[in-house]
């Protein structure tokens, strides 16, 4: 009997391959709304309905759809009308990057009434990394009133992501959702099983004999150029230490060979047949080991790739003057971005023979520059684009696939694609730098600091990408909020035979903030001070400048940011203490904790943003910026800035992003520069365009240009109205170009600080060590907020990602250097309902105040605020992340053991008896 299936109302007779899962079958049939997040049934991004039943299509054997009906997100809406669930997600803006949205929509659409009543259980099979689930929760709650129109108010069109409809219907094109270039081949990687080894021989014969295999590439085919995967405006910021394929491997999981075949299956199968002979070499597993004299060298140079020594005043004298001296070492673990979209790229030649690179990146222009450096290509002959990016968090600020796909395309002359698996993501892409931070602080009785000494060792992994910058930025920003006349920092970025660390939200500061803010909390307890008062005494006043400089060697000015944030936190804290949003469970110990953090208003990395604005024939505007949309909502805010400057509504702005052909230069979307720099470039370009439009209208109507005024879609010239469509016609005939371009450079900016503070109230179950967050407050000063909802969503997401990185997430490495957390069952990120909503409040600044960065900063105070709450609840200081329940329990068990034995036991927080009043 012939195979037949009905997908979204269309019959197909194409039988699946043996062993194929439904996910890949559906995508091959063109239903690219079905996403791959994990391929192991854990994330739900591939959810579809088979005969009305919701399944994870990555686990569903495709041969079983014979004779059945399949509905994907593309088939959910009927007759152009959105399904109520799609409508609710659109109205509530229940997404950021939007990659998980099709899966959420398909899941919620399948929920029955009892399931809608228990969302944490019903939605535990759907992961979102961007939102922290708060906006999703609002969307789902709206759908609970099935039948009636969703009650979530329409956000005004200017607030919504312009791609909203595409996101909720599955039409939004992420990197690998574009139609494939004809004749595209697939690449599979052979990876090193050793920490450190020399490749003596690679036998590719068996692999090449597999039908469908076109080529097997090894170090013999790779350019000798050494480069860094890190993408920075200044190439010299990172050591050039990596080859596309090398004859020495320096971490488990490093690429050894690339198999290129017609299809992923033969590529993978042939990959297993590549025989590599290794000479295994001794390896260093930790940064301390790598720093010892005579330690095995990881790369060509010394293992310490960057030193940082900065000091002011006299630390020893400051310590001598202190009433109390605190000294402790804090360590942070290796964590991973876990964007729902895995890295992937495609490379091919276009009709003109130019090299086309389409990739999931935060920085298309820098990818182009890097590829040109590696392969000696002319930038004019390379065009790099990005689709909508399915989450980034710094993970897409490295060249992790583009170099090998380019090599494969150049060698085979065919289009080539590489899509990483979730296991690749977790075991062989970049991670957050693990830090070991020793903090020595001298304080007076009143909480003013007399001395601060910070000693940092950062494990940058086998290659130095981002190592020096993370160390430098982490220390400068981590210590930015404090006022201390005698401060010294000594930092070391060290190569080890571990997977390379990279850029991660917080960029080193989160690790430093964890140490220093935990230390300040301990000192406050020692001195009997309210931790908030301690911050007021220890931190910079409005007239003070940060101890260490940022961009252009400027010491950042604090202004009133910190003062206002702490004052607001004091008010909100009082209020929340009275309200007690969530009661603790009986028997739990309750505690609260806070932490503050600051962030430079612009990075010191030479960051540069360009924008182009032009009037189109239809009287609307085209706005071009460099970075892709990856869920920060930057695009929406930039359209709003453009609209404000041009006196029109955001609906009249068409945004085009992430194409190296559009702009000459652009550093890209990282370091929270979208508002501070790209926003400035957009404002300037639009101001110039507005001037151009009024000037042109003045010439057209013969009115003095001072009498011309640009409004929504018209220029008013002393009584004569010139519609913008007419103006465009006129300009065309006159040979005028109504386009303006502007650049904003971090190096030209005046440095200030944005400030965030986090407060938690938690309950700890002493029997299990499990922590429940009962209440969460985040106060931020991010300057003039362009888009409040978008900013709030960024904070909500950062808090939950921060909680994940604090409470449970950890990439664990086995003794042989293999990362053992290889899937989302062992590397578990926060789930829907794990944490209560965060109360987010921004310091009110008038809209003319320059916006300051936020998304990167908001994660930094999370870990110390939580650790401080644990200390308040249990009297136990945990100085190692993550705060796993087994660690908490065992710390608690050992202190109660000691106190039973008569020693001074843990100071106990309040114990809840019979449950708290709610």
């Amino acid at each position, binding site marked *: 009997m012939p195979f037949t299936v009905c997908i979204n109302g269309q019959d197909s007779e194409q039988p699946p391959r043996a062993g194929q899962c439904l*996910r890949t079958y559906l995508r091959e049939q063109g239903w690219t709304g079905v996403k791959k997040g994990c391929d*192991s049934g854990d994330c739900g991004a591939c959810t579809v309905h088979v005969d009305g039943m919701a399944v994870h299509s990555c*686990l569903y054997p495709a*041969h079983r759809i014979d004779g059945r009906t399949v509905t994907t997100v593309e088939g959910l809406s009927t007759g152009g009308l959105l399904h109520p669930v799609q409508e609710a997600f659109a109205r509530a803006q229940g997404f950021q990057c939007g990659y998980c949205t099709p899966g959420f929509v398909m899941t919620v659409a399948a929920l029955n009434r009892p399931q809608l009543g228990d969302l944490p259980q019903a939605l535990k099979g759907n992961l979102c990394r961007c939102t922290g689930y708060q906006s999703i929760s609002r969307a789902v709650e709206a759908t609970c009133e099935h039948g009636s129109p969703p009650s979530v108010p329409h956000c005004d069109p200017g607030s919504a992501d312009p791609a909203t409809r595409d996101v909720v219907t599955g039409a939004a094109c992420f990197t690998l959702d574009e139609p494939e270039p004809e004749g595209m081949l697939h690449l599979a990687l052979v990876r090193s099983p050793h920490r450190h080894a020399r490749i003596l021989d690679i036998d590719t014969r068996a692999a090449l004999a597999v039908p469908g295999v076109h080529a097997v590439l090894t170090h013999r085919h790779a350019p000798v150029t050494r480069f860094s995967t890190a993408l920075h405006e200044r190439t010299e910021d990172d050591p050039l230490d990596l080859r596309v394929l090398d004859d020495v491997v320096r971490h488990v999981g490093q690429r050894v060979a690339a198999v290129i075949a017609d299809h992923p299956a033969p590529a993978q199968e042939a990959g297993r047949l590549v025989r590599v002979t290794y000479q295994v070499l001794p390896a260093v597993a930790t940064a301390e080991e790598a720093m010892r004299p005579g330690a095995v060298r990881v790369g060509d140079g010394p293992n310490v790739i960057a030193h940082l020594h900065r000091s002011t005043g006299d630390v020893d004298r400051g310590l001598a003057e202190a009433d109390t001296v605190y000294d402790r070492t804090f360590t942070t673990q290796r964590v991973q971005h876990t964007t729902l979209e895995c890295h992937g790229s495609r490379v091919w030649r276009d009709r003109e023979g130019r090299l086309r690179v389409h990739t999931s990146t935060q920085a298309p222009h820098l990818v182009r520059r890097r590829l040109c450096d590696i392969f000696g290509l002319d930038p004019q002959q390379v065009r790099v684009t990005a689709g909508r990016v399915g989450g980034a968090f710094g993970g897409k600020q490295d060249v992790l696939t583009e170099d090998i796909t380019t090599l494969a395309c150049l060698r085979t002359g065919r289009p080539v694609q590489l899509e990483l698996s979730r296991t690749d993501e977790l075991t062989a892409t970049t991670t957050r730098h693990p830090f070991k931070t020793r903090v020595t602080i001298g304080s007076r009785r009143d909480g003013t600091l007399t001395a601060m000494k910070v000693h940092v060792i950062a494990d940058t992994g086998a290659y130095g990408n981002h190592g020096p910058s993370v160390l430098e930025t982490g220390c400068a920003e981590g210590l930015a909020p404090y006022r201390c006349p005698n401060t010294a920092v000594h930092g070391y970025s060290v190569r080890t035979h571990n997977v390379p660390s990279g850029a991660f939200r917080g960029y080193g500061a989160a690790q430093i903030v964890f140490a220093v803010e935990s230390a300040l909390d301990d000192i406050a307890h020692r001195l009997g001070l309210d931790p908030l008062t301690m911050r007021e005494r220890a931190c910079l006043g409005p007239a003070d400048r940060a101890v260490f400089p940022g961009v252009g060697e400027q010491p950042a000015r604090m202004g009133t940011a910190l003062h206002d944030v702490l004052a607001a936190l004091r008010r909100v804290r009082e209020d929340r203490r009275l309200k007690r949003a969530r009661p603790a469970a009986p028997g739990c110990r309750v505690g609260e904790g806070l932490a503050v953090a600051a962030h430079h208003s612009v990075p010191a990395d030479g960051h540069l943003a360009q924008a182009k604005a032009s009037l189109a024939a239809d009287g609307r505007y085209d706005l071009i910026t460099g970075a892709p949309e990856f869920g920060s909502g930057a695009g929406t805010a930039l359209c709003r800035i453009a609209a404000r400057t041009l006196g029109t509504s955001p609906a009249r702005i068409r945004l085009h992003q992430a194409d190296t052909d559009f702009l000459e230069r652009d550093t890209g979307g990282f370091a929270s520069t979208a508002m501070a720099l790209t926003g400035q470039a957009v404002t300037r370009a639009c101001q110039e365009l507005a001037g151009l439009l009024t000037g042109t209208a003045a010439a057209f109507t013969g009115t003095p240009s001072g009498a011309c005024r640009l409004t929504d879609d018209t220029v008013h010239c002393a009584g004569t109205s010139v519609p913008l469509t007419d103006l465009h016609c006129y300009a065309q005939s006159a040979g005028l170009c109504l386009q303006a371009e502007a650049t904003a450079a971090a190096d030209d900016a005046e440095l200030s600080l944005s400030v965030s503070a986090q407060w938690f109230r938690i309950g700890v179950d002493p029997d299990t060590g499990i922590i429940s967050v009962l209440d969460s407050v985040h106060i931020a000063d991010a300057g003039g907020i362009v888009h409040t909802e978008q900013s709030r969503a960024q904070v909500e997401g950062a808090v939950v990602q921060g909680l994940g990185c604090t409470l449970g997430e950890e990439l664990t490495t086995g003794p042989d250097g293999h990362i053992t957390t290889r899937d989302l069952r062992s590397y578990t990120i926060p789930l829907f309902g794990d944490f209560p909503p965060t109360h987010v409040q921004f310091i009110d600044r008038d809209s003319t105040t320059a916006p300051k960065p936020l998304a990167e900063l908001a994660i930094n105070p999370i870990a110390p605020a939580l650790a401080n709450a644990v200390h308040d609840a249990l009297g136990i200081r945990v100085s190692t992340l993550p705060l796993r329940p087994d660690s908490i329990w065992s710390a608690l068990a050992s202190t109660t053991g000691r106190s039973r034995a008569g020693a001074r036991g843990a100071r106990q927080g309040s114990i809840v008896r019979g449950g708290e009043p709610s």
Partner: protein
Amino acid sequence: MDLTAVREVVDGQIALPWRQGDAWLAGGTALFAEPRPGLRRLRDLTTLDWPPLTVTEAGIEVAATCTITDLLAFAETPGAPWPSGRALIAGCCRAFSSSFKVWNTATVGGNLCAALPAGPMISMAVALDGTCRVRGLDGTERAVPVRDFVTGNGSTVLGPGELLRSLTLPAGALAARSLMRRVATHVWGRSVALVTGIRGRPEGRLTVTVTAATSRPVTVSFPCTPCPGELRGRLLPALPCQLLLDDVHGRPRWRRHLAVHLAEEVRSTLAEER
């Protein structure tokens, strides 16, 4: 994910000799969750159309291919017999860390055969004194008590080509007072320790089983309800370090503490119910 080495999917009813690279396919949710470079042929059991649940006075026979969703629906049917046993079944179904979407196709037999420490169907079947019907390729059958079926983390008594036909839960156990308690780091996440207790089979006897914390089920049994110290005294030596799991979800000492803690909760709750 795609099982890239698989060349063929065949009807499970077809009598074929077993060869290396063969695997029985039920729901597929475990097989398709990892790369299986060794698998060449899948033998699909769902074509056999076994009735998912057969209820008699003697108890319940659950087909290996019965889905978690079907079992949960049966367990939560209002007003049906054996409320205590069915509550335990429902609790174990909901103890899966996976989504209800996975339960729609994942099978009871698949969970037993995967033999993972946190396999909730193992917890359930051991607690309710289940028996596995194991069938060889030649059609011969043998009965294996569930507590002997799982031999370690990922291993069972099944020989090459043997399959699990069904699981039988006797009426006596279903009728007895029973209870399940567990700890997970996420509210609906994977169990780090799961303890079941059953009382009154035979009359007065208390049997406590630990799963999830250990690489295979660990059972202790008392002729009548023990005091807390007695329970602890029997359980601790039954949970030696090498039997306790050590992974990213929890260290052995903690898991042992939780197992004992939960066992005491189960003991005292069952002791109160008269």
